[in-house]
């Protein structure tokens, strides 16, 4: 116990902290400028000076640690004079242009000068001039206001790990600059903007459009982009989002955000948002009333059910909608329509992968807290760059690496490049061989515990007696694998981070099996990346063809009966079709009607024209969305829904944490669940809820996992898996494991087409966010420098053609793309990667589409490509 006296008051401390922190705990505020919680210590501004008895001169309280018996004074004439002096010194180069500075009103310098003075400077030298830099599309930089506190640099370098900016030059010439001196060309997380105490780093999204005190409403909610689920505040004025700001230290993101979360909100106010229901008349979609639209759907849907049965209808739920929306949707499909043909885009990798991993290792195996990554000493990353797919989770990995954790990355993860990763890059699609070899070594190094006998049996069947040479076909030398294996074996708490790329394979299940086995044998935790805000929620709400809310298999009569009793509606006993199985069924007429909420299969699913022509065959296509998407354009009826910023509800993140989504913007329109309830009423079924909270109350009754979980609990913090619920225990008694047949070979001008998942774009929403669009304005094809050189491509427009069609795109040379592959993202209209894929094979176990089968040719277009 350390005792110190601060301003005559005795303060007891259980461990050594800085004087600043000791004072804070005693409720005494010491002014600071360069100090910022969570950043490395600095001690540069000298605002936090205090008197310490027996020490000469004033001391910086943000760097000096307390010792037992210290006597400290935080306010005195001498201290105030010193602070005033420091401020005077800071102001010698400061323009004092508060009248038109965005930061005025929430500027730390302004507040301190107001408190201590310092504006009447004694320096007569002219102030340094630096015109404001507005060359960057997102961030403006006003260096005249910069006080060289280095908070931004310590944030970017020490916390974010992007290291995009630095203090350049020396002494009074020191300024903050990005490498280029102009544009930031960085990860655009804006976390430097969060910590800048003055108006030096500004967001161009709202610069000079309002004052902080003119915000009408600040609403705490959760990001609607990826499965991490960062908390932040929406600030609203005139029913438009003015800005997104995090709360320092709060939420699982602790106040950090990524580019999509911070700057990707403009779609909410986009001009092309749907406003009125649309109905198809004489081939065209025309505006109609809610009453007419819902009446039409009710009649048409009832007709289909009557003539062809409920199983002739299928529904696609939304990984962007709330739990409440998705719960009501599956209830509508099962109870009112009478079908289990329900799935969502989580099927593209996440849901099938999770279900399979759970069948091997138990329900909840991937429900691990992201912050726990910091405690891992080895992090094995496979199947995608976490710093791009789930950026804040990526930062956690970087943070662990900084603290000494070893990173092993199977396949390139460019965002981890500066974190000393052990990179294992097998030949295209040969990760399985590396994993098998690692598993083999892990089993011989560690043995098995006998805990999960079925899994162990399958492991024994899968590994060879002799580990050497197993990975021969992967092109990775044994020594390399041995090194990684030794790292993993030596680990106390390994983490396995699994991304979509390794799942979206014809034998994705085998990769997953090997990863599950490896993590089992080594006692590791699994993190399954999720690129959309509520993939986990769609799964847990039962938007699956074979599973009821709460993860109960519907094929088991007991579970189904209990569920029927709890929700008061019957559920068909037969399992439904999974996402990729729905389209062939539409094509051959087994499915006559499709109901889609918040999803865009015509664009977001691989299969190019086969998806569209399947949709064309439908008797009825209903789409609820916020934009007229490619799918909505084909629909018979389009209903305008609300975006995540305009409704209340909950999201479940990839850790399975349930968090509240709150309405920030008021907009006319209806939540997806409300539309469905209205429709159910018109079809003769009573589904009525007063609010999203009432929907959650029903979920809390119906789903064994969400038992007794109410908004009050979620707000109070009881929101981490397994809540108060009961996960299913035990493992499957049989292990399904299917190995893919031969893969297509690349070469002789044919490249494997891979999915690019850039940081700044993630689809329908981001492509309508102006700021993000400026960062990646158009679709590109990325290729390896050597491949590009062999085709004489060094940029410019190229044509990429597959069996499904061709697109013309700008070529980007990128050494993180593997030889033999090209990468295209799926964001831009008419140039999505999925449009180039012919009907992809589906992994028989996870039912996820497999992307390795698509080969493309790339040719430079004359005149554009430089040779």
């Amino acid at each position, binding site marked *: 116990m350390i005792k110190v006296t601060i301003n005559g008051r005795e303060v007891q401390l259980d461990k050594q902290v800085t004087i600043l922190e000791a004072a804070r705990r005693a409720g005494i505020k010491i002014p600071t400028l360069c100090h910022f919680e969570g950043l490395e210590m600095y001690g540069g501004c000298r605002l936090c000076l205090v008197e310490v008895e027996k020490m000469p001169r004033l001391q910086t309280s943000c760097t000096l640690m307390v010792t037992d018996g210290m006597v400290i004074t935080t306010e005195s004439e001498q201290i105030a004079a010193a602070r005033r002096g420091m401020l005077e010194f800071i102001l010698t180069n400061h323009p004092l242009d508060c009248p038109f500075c965005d930061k005025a009103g929430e500027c730390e310098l302004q507040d301190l000068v107001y408190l201590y003075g310092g504006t009447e400077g004694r320096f007569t030298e002219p102030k340094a001039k630096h015109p404001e830099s507005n060359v960057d599309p997102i961030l403006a930089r006003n260096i005249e206001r910069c006080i060289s506190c280095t908070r931004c640099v310590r944030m970017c370098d020490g916390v974010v790990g*992007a*290291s995009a*900016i*630095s203090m350049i*030059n020396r002494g009074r010439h020191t300024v903050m600059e990005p*490498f280029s001196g102009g544009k930031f060309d960085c990860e655009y997380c804006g976390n430097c903007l969060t910590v800048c105490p003055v108006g030096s780093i500004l967001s161009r999204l709202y610069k000079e459009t309002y004052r902080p005190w003119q915000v009408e409403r600040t609403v705490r909610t959760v990001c609607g982009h990826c499965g991490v689920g960062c908390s932040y505040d929406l600030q609203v004025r005139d029913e438009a989002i003015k800005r997104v700001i995090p709360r320092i230290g709060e939420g699982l993101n602790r106040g950090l955000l990524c580019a999509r979360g911070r700057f990707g909100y403009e779609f909410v106010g986009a001009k092309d948002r749907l406003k009125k229901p649309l109905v198809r008349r004489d081939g065209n979609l025309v505006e109609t009333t809610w009453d007419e639209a819902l009446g039409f759907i009710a009649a048409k849907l009832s007709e289909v059910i009557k003539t062809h049965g409920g199983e002739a209808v299928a529904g696609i739920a939304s990984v962007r909608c709330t739990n409440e929306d998705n719960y009501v949707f599956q209830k509508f499909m099962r109870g009112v329509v009478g079908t289990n043909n329900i799935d969502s885009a989580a099927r593209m990798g996440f849901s099938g992968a999770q279900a399979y991993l759970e069948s091997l290792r138990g329900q909840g195996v991937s429900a691990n807290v992201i912050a726990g990554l910091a405690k891992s000493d080895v992090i094995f990353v496979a199947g995608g760059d976490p710093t791009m797919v789930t950026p804040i989770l990526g930062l956690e990995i970087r943070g662990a690496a900084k603290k000494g954790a070893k990173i092993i990355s199977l396949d390139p993860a460019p965002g981890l*490049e*500066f974190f*000393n990763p052990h990179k294992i890059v097998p030949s295209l699609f040969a990760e399985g061989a590396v994993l098998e070899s690692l598993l083999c070594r892990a089993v011989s190094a560690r043995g098995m515990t006998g805990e999960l006998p079925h899994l162990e049996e399958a492991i024994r069947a899968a590994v060879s007696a002799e580990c050497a040479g197993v990975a021969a076909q992967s092109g990775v030398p044994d020594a390399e694998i041995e090194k990684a294996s030794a790292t993993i074996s030596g680990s106390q708490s390994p983490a396995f981070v699994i991304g979509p790329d390794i799942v979206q394979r014809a034998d994705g299940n085998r990769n997953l099996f090997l990863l599950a086995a490896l993590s089992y044998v080594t006692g590791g935790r699994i993190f399954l990346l999720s690129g959309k805000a509520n993939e986990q929620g769609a799964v847990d709400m039962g938007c699956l063809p074979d599973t009821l809310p709460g993860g109960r298999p519907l094929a088991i009569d007991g579970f189904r009966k209990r569920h029927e009793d709890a929700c008061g509606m019957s559920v068909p006993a037969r399992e439904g079709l999974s996402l990729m199985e729905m389209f062939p069924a539409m094509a051959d007429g087994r499915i006559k009607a499709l109901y889609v909420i918040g999803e865009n299969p015509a664009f977001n699913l691989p299969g190019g024209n086969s998806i569209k022509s399947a949709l064309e065959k439908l008797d009825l296509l209903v789409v609820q969305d916020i934009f007229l998407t490619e799918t909505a354009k084909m629909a018979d009826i389009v209903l305008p829904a609300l975006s995540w910023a305009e409704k209340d509800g909950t999201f479940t993140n990839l850790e399975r944490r349930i968090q509240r989504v709150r309405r920030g913007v008021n907009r006319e329109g209806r939540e997806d669940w409300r539309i469905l309830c209205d429709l159910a009423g018109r079809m003769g079924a009573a589904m009525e809820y007063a609010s999203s909270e009432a929907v959650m109350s029903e979920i809390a009754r119906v789903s064994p996992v969400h038992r007794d979980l109410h908004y009050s609990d979620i707000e109070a913090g009881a929101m981490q898996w397994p809540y108060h619920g009961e996960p299913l225990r035990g493992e499957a008694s049989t292990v399904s494991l299917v190995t893919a047949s031969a893969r297509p070979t690349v070469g002789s001008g044919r490249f494997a087409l891979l999915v690019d998942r850039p940081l700044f774009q993630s689809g329908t929403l981001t492509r309508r966010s102006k700021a993000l669009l400026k960062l990646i304005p158009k679709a590109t094809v990325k290729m390896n420098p050597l491949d590009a050189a062999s085709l004489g491509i060094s940029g410019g427009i190229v044509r990429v053609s597959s069996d499904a069609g061709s697109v013309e795109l700008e070529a980007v040379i990128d050494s993180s793309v593997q030889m033999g592959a090209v990468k295209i993202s799926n964001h831009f209209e008419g140039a999505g990667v999925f449009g180039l894929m012919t009907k992809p094979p589906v992994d028989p176990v996870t039912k996820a589409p497999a992307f390795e089968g698509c080969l493309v040719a790339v040719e430079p277009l004359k005149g554009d490509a430089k040779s």
Partner: protein
Amino acid sequence: MKSQIADELECVKAKYPAERAALLPALYLAQRKYGWLSAEAMDEVSRELRVPKATVRGVATFYAMYRHKQVGRNVIQLCTNVSCMILGAERLVDIIREKYGVEPGGTSADGRFSLVIMECIGACGTAPAMLVNTDFHESLTQENIVTILEGYR
């Protein structure tokens, strides 16, 4: 694609416990190779040492001995601090300016010389003094400075 300074850098790196620690000598190598630290040169150092390029630039701009502008084939670093000034260094500046057409801080039109004014290069006892590239010249006079500089093409 192997970088131009990679080989030499390997030897330098070997002398330090961590790649990052070799940053100053690496920058020096890059400067020797390219004459100055262009964005490309710093980028190359960044890649070779796996130190982020903004960090590299922060360090490179902190030290006065790194150059951030294109310089001539030969760099004259002439001292004009107290001792050198008393012994006529200012006149030497004029001579260089007149004879080769190079202003302090500038480069001659033919790219032959750049002139950098230094603050005491520690040769006060034999002032005035200058460095031309890495060669040290002391006890300069209005006559011998031209002879010396004529040796650099």
